């Protein structure tokens, strides 16, 4: 669909982001299980951290879009 090398790059970015967000989610669940009272704060921190990682992954998407022919 798009430039195939860009697509591979986007795939790699997604891989990294997936690993990162997976870790955040896992740790957050662990944290909530240990300390259920702090679930609200943990969730907020989790979402912010996930968004930051997602942002990096989306840089990958943007670079992929740069290779797109329109």
């Amino acid at each position, binding site marked *: 669909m798009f430039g195939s090398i860009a697509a591979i790059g986007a795939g790699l970015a997604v891989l990294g982001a997936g690993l990162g967000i997976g870790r955040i989610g896992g740790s957050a669940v662990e944290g909530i299980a240990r300390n259920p009272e702090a679930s609200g704060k943990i969730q907020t921190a989790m979402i912010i951290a996930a968004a930051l990682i997602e942002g990096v992954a989306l840089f990958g998407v*943007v670079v992929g*879009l*740069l290779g*797109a022919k*329109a």
Partner: protein
Amino acid sequence: MDLILPDLGLLFWTGIVFCCLLFLLAKFAWKPILNAVNAREQKISEALELAVKTQAEMKALKAENDQILKEARAERDSILKEAKDAANHMIEDAKTKSKVEAQKIVDAARLNINSEKAAAIAEIKTHVATLAIEIAEKVVRGELASDEKQKALAEKLAGDIQMN
């Protein structure tokens, strides 16, 4: 590439629209909404505070009420007791009084009866005496119808007197 290049026209319109939106919303939406929400929160916290205070007051009031009730109950008990005592006393009094009265009445009645009895006896006595006298008169009249008889009698009487 032009996907990630900003566009002057859209930037211009976004700026205008966003600034207008910010101004209008801040002035006519966020301010009244936040004011109302804050006012309500204030009201709720005040109401909660008041509720706690009222609860404490209620507790104090209840304690006071209980105290008053207790006192009232004690007073009532004492009044009742007093009343009962008074009633008993009165009954007792009335009883003795009535006894005395009854005794008096009985005594009076007895006295009356006795005096009546005496009077009746006296009357009977007089009656009997009269009757006796009448009879005696009649007898005497008969006795004394003749001279001898008068003489005999006189003698006899004289004899009696002499014997006395």
